[in-house]
């Protein structure tokens, strides 16, 4: 885990990065620009993607056995923020990316940062092949961490500035996911209580196979059911879950997954989360038990967060904490 000085994390702050860029012939962008995360992403169409079932022959609403029990010992989340700080040769964007991830452990109903603190990184992201080796090595020599945004196999010809920005954002995201993965892996290797992970766990290597990691997905751009099961998902009552299915995508570990309604908001997907756990060791009783754990985290409500209907308080706490230490 990265050392953190004064809780503020490593790397180079934006202000210094601008100065360094200017010193290396870049033309700085006006400060205060919006982060790439806030700008509209190129939209893909929401879709249905029916998945093989682990329980029964069709997606059904299932009542849970027993009352919700608080069992999570910790919460994992990460944040990121990417800002264009300038351009090289007028067209090559240089992005400053801040990523941070932390596990907040729960002890006597109070959350505190696990282990030796959060992982905070501040670095530059730019297409190395386009920037040229001399610029890259000069930047590296000035002590600033630099990451290449171009996938290794891709040709050097990619030039649309917006596409370069998209790649930069993805590279920043990859850094964040790596940090999250390191933390998740460390927890699963050393802790004994389950870890509540914000988002899926399929992207993790070790943690996605651990019985301790529970991923909770809040957005449903893809619904993993067939068209005739959408109504079943949309009409789940609070406390009900669907039959479990397998989520398997390229470059992700196969995981067991199901939908769970936390609360009723009136909207078809309001208060709905998708739970991901390791496929190994899955059975219905375990799905019920883990659903109960997730339901137990409905309180305290994560208001005033706008996604309070699906967000656990522990995850909100994680985000607030990361915003405080990584800005």
């Amino acid at each position: 885990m990265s050392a953190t000085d004064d809780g503020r994390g490593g790397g180079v702050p934006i202000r210094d990065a601008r100065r360094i860029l200017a010193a290396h012939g870049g033309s700085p962008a006006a400060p205060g620009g919006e982060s790439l995360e806030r700008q509209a992403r190129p939209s893909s169409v929401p879709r249905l993607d029916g998945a093989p079932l682990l329980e029964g022959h069709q997606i059904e609403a299932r009542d849970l056995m027993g009352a919700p029990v608080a069992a999570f010992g910790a919460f994992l989340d990460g944040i990121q923020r990417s800002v264009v700080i300038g351009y090289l040769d007028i067209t090559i964007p240089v992005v400053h990316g801040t990523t941070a991830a932390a596990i907040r452990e729960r002890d006597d109903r109070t959350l505190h940062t696990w282990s030796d603190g959060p992982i905070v990184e501040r670095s530059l992201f730019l297409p190395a092949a386009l920037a040229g080796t001399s610029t890259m090595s000069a930047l590296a020599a000035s002590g600033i961490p630099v990451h290449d945004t171009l996938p290794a196999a891709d040709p050097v010809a990619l030039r649309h500035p917006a596409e370069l920005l998209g790649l930069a954002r993805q590279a920043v995201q990859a850094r964040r996911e790596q940090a999250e993965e390191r933390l998740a892996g460390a927890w699963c290797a050393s802790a004994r209580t389950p870890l509540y992970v914000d988002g899926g766990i399929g992207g993790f290597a070790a943690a996605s196979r651990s019985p301790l990691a529970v991923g909770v997905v809040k957005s449903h751009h893809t619904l993993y059911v067939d068209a005739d099961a959408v109504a079943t998902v949309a009409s789940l009552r609070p406390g009900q879950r669907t039959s479990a299915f397998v989520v398997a995508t390229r470059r992700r570990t196969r995981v067991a997954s199901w939908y769970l309604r936390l609360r009723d908001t009136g909207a078809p997907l309001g208060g709905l989360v998708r739970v991901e756990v390791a496929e190994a060791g899955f059975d219905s009783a375990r799905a019920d038990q883990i659903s109960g754990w997730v339901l137990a985290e409905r309180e305290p409500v994560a208001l005033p967060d706008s996604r309070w209907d699906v967000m656990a308080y522990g995850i909100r706490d994680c985000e607030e904490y990361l915003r405080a230490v990584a800005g």
Partner: protein
Amino acid sequence: MGEILGRVVATERRPNTPHQFNFWTALDAQVGIGTIVRVDGKIPVAGRLPKVYGVVVEGLSYSDLETPLHDVLGADGEPGRADDAPTRRTEIRLYTAAVLRHIPDDPLQPVPLGAVYLASEADVQVALRMDAYLKPGASTGIPIGLYRAGATSSPIYLDADFLLGPEAAHLNITGVSGLATKTSAVEWLLSSIFAHFPAQKGSVAALCFNVKGPDLCFLDQPATRLDASDLELYAKLGVPAEPFKHVEYFAPYTARGYALNTLRSNESLSHNVRPLTWGLREVLQYAEVLLNKDDVDAKADALIDFIRERVVDQDFHDDRLATSHRVQSFTDLERWFRDVLRAMEEKNQEVWRTHHVATIRKVRNRLTNISTRCRGLVTDDGTVSDLPWGVFQDRGVYVVDVANLEEDAQDLIFARVVTQLRERLEKRTLGVDHVVVFVDELNKYAPADGPDTYVRKMLLDVAERGRYLGLVLFAAQQFRSQVHRRVVGNSGTALFGRMDSDELATPGYATLPPTTRTKLSTLDKGELMVRHPHFTQPVFVRFPRPAVLSGREGVERYPQADEPTLEGAVVRALRPLDRSITLDWVKETIALADEDEVLRARNRTLQVRPDDVQAYFRSQLKRRVATESVGARTRPAIRTSPGDDPYAF
């Protein structure tokens, strides 16, 4: 250095200033309103790391909720459910502190960000600027109480130069009845002064007016109840937990004249109780105290001056009068008046020596009235038994019991005693260099509204000029707002016990932060808020129960003697002078004398303190002068005590 208690925070919306800063702490931090803290800055200013001392004046706590409604929604409207949630909401404790002192103090800057520590004992001394007057060997510190917070317990000292002059002086204490421990605090502070008043400043005595029941009647008797915590305070503050060693009591007689008008009448305590009686000369000097209320004009004044200067204590001849006069008592004066008026009547004159007959009648009425209204204090026969003027003792306490007296008599006593103190301190003929005058229920004697009485003028004068003379006023009252502004305003030191919230709502307290006001309205017995010229902010301290027997317990332990018979009164008065005097001897001796004569003989004997008490007393009876008694005396009713006074009798 200690553990870090908190951290200074400043935002654009809630910035720090040179006189105020904010800091947050852990939820279980030992900090509260009144806690003294130290901030260690991190960036040197002129080569020095700044340190800032402050006292907490406000505390806030809040959670990450935006509106209370969210909490209600989250718990489905069931308050009990909020506790079931597996995680506690994030909560903050945010405190505001008022700056006590910056080091260095120049240039004066906003409080820097930095770690906050609980002030140690040494820090408290610096924060309150006590380091300036606690220098070893030259200390002028007088302990007022102990400041406590967390592991720190630090004695708080007042500066004698600012409590008893000459830099500043006087003390005022306010608070509700029974809970504010006003009288107790003054008793404690007197003990502390006696233990710590620096030798280089000379001698000090206290003169206390007992204005309420048995309040100050047992200052020489040990307290029945001092807890371990009290004794610890005495030890920590370096004051012996003992009653006052040298106490003298003074009280006028009751209207009937047999016994002294005090609740300290138990015979086993009579050795240091003396009568307080004045004659014509003493009273005439202060006639205006009582006369100004009756609208005495310039003409009457002129006549009183004439009597004072030309009649009293000298042979007075006037061809128109029947005899020559030597006026030494009210009785003599009355005879003189009658002679004058008779002479005028006979010659049908309206004016005698420029004084109109109406004026003469009026002044005669007023003056003879005094001896009636102040029965017990003013003797017809001129016997004087007074405070030990000239031989006041260092660390002596002189209690004048005026609790059961008519207002006029109280006023007269105040006026004369304080004026004597003033004059004698000025001439340095009192016997001590400093006197603390303790006046309880100050709102009665120096009220904010109401007529400008002599007593109020005199208290104002003491408040404004006393510090140069070593004449120091310690005053207590329930409602500071009801006391004349300049009297409280001139009090260098102010103490506040538990306060009434209506009183706190008056404009005088507007400068206190709201939380400090709240704290004042919930103070425990034995807790005080202290304002002192050296302290830039008020401090809260705890003081021990006084080491003297309380009035309430005193009257139980030393029940009052019954109202004596005439014989009993004489025995009681003369026994301390001659132990062999018996009731039978007195009965036999006074068998043929009338009451006035017996009392006069007793008073004279007490005044003269002859070697042969019995012979002297007898001689006074035999010396039967053919005096007419002053008309038919109407005895004023004994002053009735208010209904809620449990010591009324």
